[in-house]
């Protein structure tokens, strides 16, 4: 084992144990539970709000006495067609004459429920006032007006079309589904790196505050120290992921055991779910996705480690968190845009740009069957990991260790040192 790798593993081992063998790690491990709980509470609140909005919304038809019943029948017939959320509750009021604008405004202003649209005038030439231009509520009023008019012309018992709906499992992939999988991969990778890689920004703070850094610098190449730290944090990240994957598997098995046999489809996954397989196949997609996660972690972790290593105080490290998060979100945005437009110049750019590359390439694995391109992608990203770690170590040596001051690496005197091999 070469001395470089040996030192790397020594540092990684120390960092891994220093993080994992503490009570606070348990809190970190369970952090997603708090996020889930918060999400659940937030989701329930949002659902309640949406339900509340639905129950308080209405559409109003102000029409002559003769049309009232016809509109109600038409509404009863069309409402199931447009679905539960297709139209707000209908209120039909009988009026003697076409109401003027002031009356309509008064209807919109009534308390109790939001009036989304109001229809006035004859059914063959109704006038519809709507709160939002081009709203679904307004179109629904027009639809039932036409339906009521047709009933009046042909009679309510006239023959009507009775459609039968049947699901058909279409063989072959769905492009939209693959793009969705691609976006899912981008999101998962982003979420995990946001949660895990950002921690490396403070990883050298301990060494600086404890003055251990000079011992490390004297005993080992800083590149090996930096890589060791990255590996230590990667170990923590993989432990974190393994824990949750294991937990999900156990939960899945328990849930499957609780379900009756009849509730599970005979063929396992439904045909629709099977059709949504990524272009490279699930096994390859998951495998390469895992590798992309590792490289995304190492790449972003290396940047954060390098930037964080220049910080002299905890306050500076805290200040660095915001730009780092913004940078991560920027990479997520770029890769997300790429996943929605596979093969486009934007996608190619996101795949080539080193820091969005792992996300964009994972998305590509969902839509493009070419597998060999991922070898190039992984190699390219690995190259950048090395380059960033090398540069970070150089900056650290020329800036921090030489006593020049933490952020003074751009000074003229320091630049020649950066170029020394």
């Amino acid at each position, binding site marked *: 084992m070469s*001395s470089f790798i*040996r*030192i790397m593993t*020594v*540092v990684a081992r*120390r960092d891994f144990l*220093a993080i994992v063998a*503490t009570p606070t790690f348990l809190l970190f491990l369970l952090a997603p539970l708090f996020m889930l709980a918060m999400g659940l509470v937030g989701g329930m609140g949002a659902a309640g709000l949406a339900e509340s909005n639905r129950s308080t919304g209405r559409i109003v038809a102000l029409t002559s006495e003769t049309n009232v019943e016809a509109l109600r029948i038409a509404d009863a017939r069309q409402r199931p067609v447009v679905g539960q959320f297709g139209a707000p509750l209908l209120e039909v009021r009988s009026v003697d004459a076409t109401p003027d604008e002031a009356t309509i405004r008064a209807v919109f202003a009534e308390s109790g429920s939001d009036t989304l649209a109001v229809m006035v005038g004859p059914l063959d030439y109704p006038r519809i006032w709507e709160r939002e231009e081009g709203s679904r509520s307004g179109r629904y009023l027009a639809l039932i007006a036409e339906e009521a008019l047709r009933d009046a012309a042909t009679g309510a018992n006239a023959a009507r079309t009775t459609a039968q709906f049947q699901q058909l499992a279409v063989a072959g992939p769905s492009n939209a589904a693959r793009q969705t999988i691609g976006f899912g991969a981008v999101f998962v990778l982003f979420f995990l790196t946001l949660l895990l890689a950002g921690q490396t920004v403070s990883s050298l703070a*301990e*060494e600086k505050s*404890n*003055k*251990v*850094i*000079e*011992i*490390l*610098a*004297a*005993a*080992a*190449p800083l590149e090996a120290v930096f890589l060791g730290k990255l590996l230590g944090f990667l170990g923590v990240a993989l432990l974190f992921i393994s824990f949750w994957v294991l937990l999900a598997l156990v939960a899945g098995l328990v849930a499957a055991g609780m379900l009756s046999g009849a509730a599970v489809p005979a063929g396992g996954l439904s045909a629709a779910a099977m059709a949504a397989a990524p272009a490279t196949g699930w096994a390859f997609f998951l495998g390469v996705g895992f590798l992309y996660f590792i490289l995304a972690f190492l790449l972003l972790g290396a940047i954060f480690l390098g930037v964080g290593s220049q910080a002299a105080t905890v306050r500076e490290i805290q200040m660095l968190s915001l730009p780092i998060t913004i940078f991560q979100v920027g990479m997520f945005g770029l890769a997300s845009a790429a996943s929605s437009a596979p093969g486009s110049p934007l996608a190619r750019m996101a795949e080539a740009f080193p820091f969005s590359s792992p996300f964009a390439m994972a998305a590509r694995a969902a839509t493009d069957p070419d597998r060999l391109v991922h070898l190039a992608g992984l190699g390219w990203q690995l190259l950048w990991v090395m380059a960033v770690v090398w540069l970070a170590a150089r900056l650290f*040596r020329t800036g921090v*260790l*030489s*006593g*020049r001051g933490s952020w003074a690496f751009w*000074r003229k*005197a320091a630049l020649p*040192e950066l170029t*020394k091999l």
Partner: protein
Amino acid sequence: MLTSQIADKGVTLTEFVVEASGLTKIYGQHIAVNGVSLQVAPGSIYGVLGPNGAGKTTSLRMLLGIIDPDRGSRRLLGSDRPTSVRSRIGYLPEERGLYPGMKTTEAIAFMGALRGLDWHEGRRRGAEMMAELGLERVTGEKIRKLSKGMAQMVQLIGAIVHRPELIVLDEPFSGLDPVNQERLEALVHRERARGATVLFSTHVMAHAERLCDRLAIIARSERRFEGTVDDARALLPMQVRYTPRDGTDAAAVAAHLPVGAQCTHGEWRFAIDAAGVEPLLVRLTGSGLGVAGLSIARPALHDAFVHIVRQVDASYRGDSELAATAEDAA
């Protein structure tokens, strides 16, 4: 012994374990170290002495390859690249540092592992060395529970647990109580007896006087002296205190003593070179002045150090005065 170890590792044999020539480090407008040269022989104990801020730590950091010099060259254990012989060097930095959450033996094993020592062997040796230094009661304790001095001793053990050929200690005695200072001196002697070369910096002269085979004094970023302790002490003349027999005429006494001799309450004080001691004794006994009291003292390393540093400071002050005079004249 050391040279054969070096030869075993396939490194070119060299007369010196450490060779530095003209090391210079400049930070902006400030010259931290200016043209420092050192040569440390195998198996010796070498001291780098200097007042605070003289450039000792920067010099050691350059020697070890932690930072690169702007000018000059260095050669450690026969290699021009100090970083390539890291595993054969033990280093105790001036700023002490250990992970507070680590146990003592783990911390020692960790530092050993960085230099290539097996973890288990590191733990074993660590426990053994702690017992030897009277620290067995804190073996297995976490670093944060130790006193500063104990933590420093643990770090020192960590620096040498891999049995390095060259040990570099930056201000190793600072922060230690007298008992631990004595233990550290014994440890340095033991490491030298093992065959290691020890290079350490300090501004406490007593340790240097007891330990060093050779030493260098750095002041105002430059090396001002290099040699043995005796060489340093020889820079200053002997200090003589002489009391003639009662009733002796002062003028007659003064005539037999060197120019500049001063009398206080009947005791004469003056300085002479080592070579002048014997003629002085002959003169005094032959003069009939008598000898009621006589002491001839060699100056201590402390005196030589203070003398050198003051001379350097004086020359700097002189330069600035000259500069001021020149400006006034202009």
